[in-house]
């Protein structure tokens, strides 16, 4: 008998791994039967998870940490034993602004684009105005990546500009209506703005942090304990799904599958571009290839590095003006569960890193690292400004950022 798991998700390309696990038989091979609940707000995905409508959910990694720490809702411990992917988001701005700060037919240099944005911000300020950018959620890597980039280039995200929350499906409308000047959202929503001619892509978030943590598979901690064998089976199924997902031979059929009404209900062509790391930056332009725009499989991409959770925690307190708390840092770190990932995959031959934490952003060229299982090579994972994050010294890191 197969065991049923219900998974909540938002219609975004990076919900692909559980969907593929279901549709391509990997879940079934593991004795699982998956059911999906699609929603249109993260608040509802989270409520369904907390009140048992779903067993697991496709969730913003920072939101899993915020929920554990009791930000916005009564605290409930969330566990994330699997990272659904790295990056896959981009920054889109209204056409005229994009043409000025990111001219050219390729993605620009992160620093050069920001330097030109500084001029725009100053021009606006001279007129008593501020640019306004939309992000998908307060507790999202979109918010943290955008802020990281701006702040590192001398733009205060709270004083010099304004950041608001916008549901990704409405980003194009908001750009068209002049309600926002730019947005940092996941695919296919940047491409939708481009296709409608209301915006142009100026930067991929992979240009801010080459290996930035994005969505996770989130569960309530007690559910993880109760359903541990099934969750481990799901992890194995999703690793197989990842292997399938990154094979170019499958891209066309994966795009067609994800575009279906019950999943993304979206444009197959735009989805195909995203999963093949291609971006059309401006309406009518040829797609630009940017390698590892989305990163779902290689280098044990799904391994929940504790240091990733700690980086997210550092950004949370940075932008909410909170004091560093060793207890909170520990609780945040515990959200990511490499122990579960390891026990699911030990003996399968899949690669498992030797460590569970690393100095984030420290790898500038392909580097062999110790592995518990398989051969592990990490490629460049740097932040665009060359800073590194040492999880053992969060206060020191935060001090260096101000």
């Amino acid at each position: 008998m197969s065991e049923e798991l219900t998974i909540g998700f938002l219609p975004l390309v990076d919900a692909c791994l559980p969907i593929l696990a279901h549709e391509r038989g990997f879940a079934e091979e593991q004795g699982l039967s998956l059911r999906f609940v699609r929603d249109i707000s993260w608040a509802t995905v989270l409520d369904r998870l907390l009140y048992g409508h779903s067993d697991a959910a496709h969730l913003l990694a920072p939101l899993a940490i915020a929920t554990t720490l009791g930000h916005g809702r009564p605290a409930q411990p969330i566990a994330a034993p699997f990272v659904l992917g790295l990056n896959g988001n981009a920054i889109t701005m209204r056409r005229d602004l994009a043409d000025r700060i990111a001219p050219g037919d390729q993605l620009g240099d992160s620093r050069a684009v920001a330097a030109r944005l500084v001029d725009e911000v100053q021009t606006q300020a001279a007129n008593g105005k501020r640019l306004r950018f939309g992000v998908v959620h307060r507790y999202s890597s979109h918010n943290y990546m955008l802020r990281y980039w701006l702040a590192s280039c001398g733009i205060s995200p709270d004083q010099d500009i304004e950041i608001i929350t916008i549901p990704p499906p409405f980003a194009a409308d908001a750009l068209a209506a002049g309600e926002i000047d730019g947005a940092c959202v996941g695919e296919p929503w940047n491409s939708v703005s481009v296709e409608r001619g209301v915006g142009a892509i100026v930067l991929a978030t992979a240009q801010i942090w080459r290996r930035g943590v994005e969505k996770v598979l989130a569960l309530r901690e007690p559910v993880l304990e109760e359903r541990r064998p099934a969750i481990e089976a799901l992890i194995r199924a999703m690793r197989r799904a990842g292997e399938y997902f990154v094979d170019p031979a499958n891209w066309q059929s994966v795009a067609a599958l994800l575009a279906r009404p019950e999943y993304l209900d979206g444009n197959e062509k735009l989805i195909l571009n995203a999963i093949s790391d291609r971006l059309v930056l401006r309406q009518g332009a040829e797609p630009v290839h940017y390698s590892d725009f989305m990163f779902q499989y290689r280098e044990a991409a799904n391994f929940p590095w504790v240091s990733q959770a700690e980086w997210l925690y550092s950004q949370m307190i940075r932008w909410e003006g909170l004091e560093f708390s060793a207890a909170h840092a520990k609780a945040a770190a515990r959200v990511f569960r490499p122990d579960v990932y390891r026990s699911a995959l030990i003996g399968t031959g899949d690669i498992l890193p030797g460590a569970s934490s690393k100095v984030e952003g420290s790898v500038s060229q392909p580097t062999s690292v110790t592995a518990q299982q398989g051969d592990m090579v990490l490629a460049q994972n740097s932040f665009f400004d060359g800073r590194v994050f040492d999880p053992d010294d969060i206060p020191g890191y935060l001090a260096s950022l101000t």
Partner: protein
Amino acid sequence: MRIAIVDESAVRASIIEEGLAELEGCQIFVLTERHALLARIQEIEPDIVLIDLGNPSRDVLEEYFAVSRALARPIAMFVDEADDHAIAASIDAGVSAYVVDGLAAHRIRPLLDLAVKRFHAFARLQSDLAEAKGKLAERETIDRAKRILMDSKQISEPEAYGELRRKAMQSSKRIVEIAEAVVTAHELMGGE
């Protein structure tokens, strides 16, 4: 008590509004427009905000509440843990509630119970409607099939119906399924 109902379905919003009207001392505001939602909420200064789970503006609203912590009347997700059952019931019904900080649980619960009842009532209404619509569509298909048979076999309406019925009984199918087959076959053969 000032209650804001945020729902893009005007019909459901009015059903909930009607249900809550029986509560004494409540002023109810219905917001069905996504545009300028936050500005309206700010104007209304509600003690309670009810919003359906399928509403795309939930994240925007929660962001506003998060920022509102700095305001005089901060609004939070309904947090009284003793009332977790009430929240679970409301989530099950498809509605979430945000409550101004410090509002007593005994004032919230009857309201939430009513909202849940009205949400359920709306869901029933919707499924009745869907069923009625389905029946109507079936009726139309059977009528079309009868007309096809009447034209092609030069038979009367009762005879055409009799044929559909006989075939349905023979193949232990529903009449509407036979009618659908007739209509599809007719379309394939170049009929309208």
